């Protein structure tokens, strides 16, 4: 039952987050903005459209979206959704599998982009791997810190009982949230790392890699991107809302937390300009430093 609810929430909810982010941005701009359900409409349409494939591409291009979506979906099976819905699969070390599944998704997307032979997509792919190679240590350090704090190496147990962790390592947890939000912004190609709204080939990171995908392939990529937004958000939300409740209360808390998360993303996107491309590595390294500091704080407390 809880697994079914987990799957339902995980499969159906994510596109809504994009809608919420866009509504927040619209509010800052003073416009009505697209409907909250716009991404669902887009996906539904794309699934019903035809496709155009480049003559330069091979099966790798077509495999990109499917592998990437499949990997993200499997990753979702490892992520508990708040305190109430444990992951359908939990085992020691699933944190590693989770991170590497996202890496597989990226690898597939990058290869698909390179398969088009377009200089823009090549550029986007180059930026993507650079930034993710730098975001990886921040993510893993955060995982290490959490594992250390909760004495556990599975998402479901790491992300349960966070109240105690806050009592013990408050400042460290705050730093971790900071690092993870930075990682999430970078991994989900949001401002200040990437700008999903300005359609300029030369400046985009993620979107430029999917310029050649059309129809159902594009639908899978967009859906996969919303899943990724949701998954990284799930970690942050659980850390930021460590409260304990009954199962329905947990689910409600989690959904509310995700909406808050989307609002915060929208506010960040509305108040900052995006970074110059050569500044991005510095910020990502800063995220690693945050996470490393958190590790240090927790290490000291644990061994004290």
């Amino acid at each position, binding site marked *: 039952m809880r697994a079914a609810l987990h799957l339902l929430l995980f499969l159906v909810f994510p596109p809504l987050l994009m809608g919420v982010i866009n509504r927040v941005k619209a509010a800052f701009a003073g416009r009505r903005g697209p409907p909250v359900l716009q991404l669902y409409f887009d996906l539904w349409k794309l699934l019903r459209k035809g496709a*155009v494939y480049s003559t330069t591409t091979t099966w790798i291009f077509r495999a990109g979206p499917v592998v990437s979506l499949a990997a993200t979906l499997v990753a979702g099976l490892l992520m508990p959704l708040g305190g109430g819905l444990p992951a359908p699969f939990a085992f020691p070390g699933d944190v590693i599998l989770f991170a590497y599944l996202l890496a597989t998704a990226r690898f597939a997307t990058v290869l698909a982009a390179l398969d088009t*032979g377009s200089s823009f997509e090549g550029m986007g792919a180059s930026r993507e791997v650079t930034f993710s190679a730098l975001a990886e240590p921040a993510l893993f350090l955060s995982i290490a810190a959490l594992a250390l704090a909760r004495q556990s190496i599975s998402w479901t147990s790491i992300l349960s009982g966070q109240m105690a962790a806050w009592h013990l390592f408050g400042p460290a947890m705050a730093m971790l949230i900071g690092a993870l939000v930075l990682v999430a912004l970078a991994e989900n190609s949001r401002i200040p790392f990437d700008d999903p709204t300005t359609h300029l080939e030369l400046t985009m990171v993620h979107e430029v890699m999917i310029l050649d995908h059309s129809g159902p392939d594009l639908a899978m990529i967009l859906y996969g991107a919303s899943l990724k937004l949701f998954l990284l958000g799930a970690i942050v939300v659980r850390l930021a809302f460590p409260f304990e409740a009954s199962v329905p209360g947990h689910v409600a808390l989690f959904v509310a937390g995700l909406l808050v998360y989307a609002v915060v993303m929208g506010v960040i996107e509305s108040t900052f300009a995006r970074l110059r491309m050569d500044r991005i590595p510095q910020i990502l390294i800063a995220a690693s430093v945050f996470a490393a500091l958190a590790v240090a704080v927790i290490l000291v407390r644990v061994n004290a």
Partner: protein
Amino acid sequence: MGAGVGLVALSTGHPAVAALGFAGALLHVTNHALFKSLLFLAAGAVGKASGTLQIDRLGGLARRMPRTALCFTVGAAAISGLPPLNGFVSEFLVYLALLGAIVSLPVVPQSAAVLAFAVLACVGGLASACFAKATGAIFLGARRSPEEAVPQEVPAEMQLSMGVLAAACLGIGLAGSTLIAGLDPVVRQFSAVSLRETAALGGLTLVGALSAALVGAAFAAWLSVRWLLRRRTVKTGPTWVCGYPAVQPSMQTTASSFAQPLILVFKNILLPVRHQSGSSAAFPAALAVEEHCPDPIERFLLGPGVTGGAVAFSVARQAQPKRVQSYVLAIFITLVGLLWWRLG
């Protein structure tokens, strides 16, 4: 790294962690033998088919050599430690050992483990970047030097040897737990604890299952796209590059360009050397730039010695069979044989 954790864990009295470390290390060595051979075989196939191994002159080989491309991609993903392939299984064990160390070891090795954990993650990211670059530059996009001979797929026996290795990579990726169970006797020689007593085996079974789920889901998604498009208009055309009618193969990212942002981040370590000519004139007549990162170890340590050795080896090479693939295949078979002998 796995062995290192193992030794440290052993000395601090955490045999379970040690067992994981050793198992990871052992499996990783085996896996390296697999995917490195695979990559070398594929590289050999590329060299044979196209007559060059200069990465910035290749490109678009996947259209001509789809099977070699598939095998190379599998190898590239495996060496980057990506699921559902074997590289992930061994890295998973090492990570598990490190996490075990982080959770349970005393403070000094614990900190070291955290450091190692982050470094391993970064290395994983870099490896994935590097092999994405290699795969992309060699097999994907359009051919960069169309004036050269059109490469053809290599003969069946070469494909077979690559295929076997690729299948092994996937097989270990999916059924890693079985192999690890087999490794147990070896591990127990180093550590007092059986792998069965750690949580790793159950985890590995799930890793295998989820990897299979990944393969299945990807396959299902592939079929659904096929099904969705079955009665739709599906067309082919040139890649969308802003509507420019006269696209040339030079308008692709090169391997060096692909790597340049990363090199820039690590410029203080890699010390890239740049040669730039051409003027800053208003209307320059010619322009050239080149940058390379000489391996610091090679540059400062090995350089002098290697030159002499190379001469000696080139003499020795005359005596060997011409096809590298068969050579590597022999090594592989020997390895597998040894492994079975030891396990059985």
